[in-house]
């Protein structure tokens, strides 16, 4: 089948994703639980004992962009992996047998995942306003949103790539423990990257989320450890790569 892309079809897939998201209130609340817990416990618990020299920030302020990225990361990976449910409950067949291209389906799913993760990130952001976050300029806010969208797109595609290769949810815990948590842990969401021992630092540099966290941090706080332009280029590159890779695997799904 030729890979033509119609906005209508992409919109249809996107719309279904959004409808399902809005309807699953327990999932929205459930997936807000962990980031809020981290924010409150770590933020308040460590605020007085952690001193971040040269950052002009207390720990709570430092932590907020990290937790926003966390929320976006988890929501987007979950969104992508949902395709496994579609596979198991048969709905994917209905989509795949329709006269639409796989690229359209993939794009709709990815945009849907990115949208819901942006919403989740924004909810944490709004909550953070009560914890001392100060958004002084709209430009910074938009920069943060752009980075959230990139994280959302790339990791939804990442989830779809995984889902394309898995037949059921059995391997899911494995992915969370050995892939998603390391990506989160090494991203500098919870602590400054340069506080890690030097042998661990190269690992953080190949962690795409690190550039997302730093980008959001730059947008919200105005300071970052990595140049924000560089962050943007790396993360945008990763997004393009992930979406290409994801659609490649998605196209090979057999039902």
């Amino acid at each position, binding site marked *: 089948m030729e890979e033509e892309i119609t906005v209508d079809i992409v919109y249809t897939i996107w719309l279904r994703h959004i409808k399902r998201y809005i*309807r699953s209130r327990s999932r929205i609340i459930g997936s807000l639980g962990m980031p809020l817990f981290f924010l409150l416990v770590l933020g308040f618990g460590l605020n007085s004992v952690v001193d971040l020299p040269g950052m002009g920030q207390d720990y709570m302020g430092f932590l907020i962009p990290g937790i926003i990225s966390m929320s976006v990361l988890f929501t987007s990976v979950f969104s992508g992996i949902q395709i496994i449910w579609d596979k198991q409950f048969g709905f994917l067949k209905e989509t795949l047998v329709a006269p639409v291209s796989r690229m359209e389906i993939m794009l709709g799913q990815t945009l849907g995942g990115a949208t819901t993760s942006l919403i989740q990130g924004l909810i944490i952001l709004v909550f953070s306003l009560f914890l001392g976050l100060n958004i002084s300029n709209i430009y910074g806010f938009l920069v943060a949103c752009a980075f959230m969208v990139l994280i959302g797109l790339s990791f939804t595609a990442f989830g779809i790539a995984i889902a394309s290769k898995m037949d059921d949810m059995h391997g899911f815990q494995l992915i969370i423990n050995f892939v998603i948590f390391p990506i989160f842990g090494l991203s500098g969401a919870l602590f400054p990257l340069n506080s890690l021992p030097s042998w661990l630092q190269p690992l953080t540099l190949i962690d795409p989320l690190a550039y997302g966290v730093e980008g959001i941090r730059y947008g919200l706080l105005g300071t970052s450890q990595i140049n924000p332009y560089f962050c943007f280029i790396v993360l945008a590159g990763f997004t393009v790569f992930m979406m290409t890779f994801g659609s490649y695997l998605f196209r090979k799904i057999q039902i």
Partner: protein
Amino acid sequence: MFAIKVENLTKEFDGLVAVDNVSFDIEAGEIFGLLGPNGAGKTTILSMLSTILKPTSGTAIVNDLDILKDEDGVRKSIGIVFQDQSLDEELTAYENMDFHGRLYRIPKNLRQERIAELLKLVELEDRKDSLVKTFSGGMRRRLEIARGLLHHPKVLFLDEPTLGLDPQTRNHLWQYIENLNKEKGITIILTTHYMDEADKLCEKVAIIDMGKIIALDTPQKLKEDLGGDVITIKSPDADKIYSKIKASWVKNIESHDGFVTINLENAEKHITEIVSLSSHNNIDIESISIHKPTLEDVFLNFTGKTIREQEFNTKDQMRMRQRLWRRR
């Protein structure tokens, strides 16, 4: 005029031949049944005809379009109801229909009109805004059929449409299918492993076993070809009866899990012979019956096995059970 022309269609999975060089034609406006045990290759044939699977070799023409050359064209001209459910349970009946209509690029006004019409046809119009997860098995099936018709396909594929449904719902569904065929002139191809379903519903039946078509005709003709009557004997010593009965009037005799099935002319005349032969040889008979040949007997005649035996031979047994379990 042919709706479907299958030419030497073959599908192998890792060296295992699921569909073995199958050729047949389906006339437009027909209800055509693919009949056979689970694992015979029925679903694989349907998957190839609906372009979900690529054949290993051979091809088919569906509505004048080649399944290898014009996937999109074929997809637009067919409707399909899968064996396993394929609805989104988190959406309402209407939304499921709407999603489908958008994917098939049906303009908004026409889409709304047809959805209303079809939901009425399958008697779901008052449940259109309920989430599908609150629906019963029969309601889901009806919704899927309605959805398969939304883009006005010329050919509708139904893969085991009544699997796991109660008898009443099955009857109901048969009626829908017949009406659809008559009133809208849609060619219907269904797979089933229920012999009575094929007999009642289909104008033509292809009996499939181990990836091959072993018989193809009208149910009437298939039964007539077998001819005469069928005597079924239930006995703990079925094999013994099988070896003892060697009369010239026996056209065909098969022994299978505690039953002996004999195909013959004028059964009324010979039944006493059978009974006295058995008591002479001290063979217990639990029950004995005479009936006209059914498709079940046709299948038995061609394969030497009942359709159920054939099913439980295959590893599919486990998968089948899982599927039924999931559907509940």
